[in-house]
């Protein structure tokens, strides 16, 4: 048995148990007199208007798309940057040119996005 982790299990059990206890106990003890005004969703004192499931602007999605692509580019650049110094000693400039090619391809993509107007927030007339 892995008794090293027993303390973790106890911690998790106590945490969950604590929360359950704190939810269950008031539920048992408090009076229950529901009233339409009391049941309204809390929005910092304001009266809520409309449904809670609204449609977000599609531009958020475009921005997220572009972000994901370049974020992944950075993810790949990190390990390369960490070992670059030792690579430079053994292999010279070649690792640099490899990463250069990678970034170049993505730069072409960025240029295309820019030209298509996907980096603008305000929806203007796009090229295509």
């Amino acid at each position, binding site marked *: 048995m892995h008794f*090293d982790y027993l303390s973790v299990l106890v911690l998790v059990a106590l945490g969950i148990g604590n929360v359950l206890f704190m939810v269950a106990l008031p539920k048992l003890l408090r009076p229950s007199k529901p009233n339409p005004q009391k049941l309204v969703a809390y929005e910092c004192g304001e009266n809520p208007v409309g449904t809670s499931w609204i449609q977000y602007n599609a531009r958020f*999605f475009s921005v997220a*798309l572009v972000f*994901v*692509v370049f974020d*992944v580019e950075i*993810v*790949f650049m990190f390990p390369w940057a960490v070992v670059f110094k030792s690579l430079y000693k053994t292999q010279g400039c070649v690792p640099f040119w490899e990463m250069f090619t990678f970034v170049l391809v993505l730069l072409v993509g960025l240029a295309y996005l820019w030209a298509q107007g996907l980096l603008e927030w305000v929806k203007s007339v796009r090229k295509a």
Partner: protein
Amino acid sequence: MQVIGLTPYLVVASTLFCLGVFCVLTRRNSIGILIGVELMLNAANVNIVAFSRYVGDPVGGQIFAILVILLAASEAVIFLGLLMAVYQRFDTIEVDKVSLLKDEVPGDDAHERA
């Protein structure tokens, strides 16, 4: 700290995979299906990293895992892009409702053509 061994990782990965498959098979909402797909891909990730340690390959599994994360992200992006197009056309993202393309049953076909 005692070494856990390989089995718990495999169990976790298999559980995640089965949950992912269950998610894909039972949900009507497309985003729910996407969540199932991500679960499956991440289950495979856990598997890969665990095996990498077990097999004695210090780097291969880790690189594979990063690659899988990248591809899962790209796949989700394309999935959501096509989902947006579907919503524009069909006004719904439920899987059952998107079905213009069907096999023709011989009996119905005659009615449609007439």
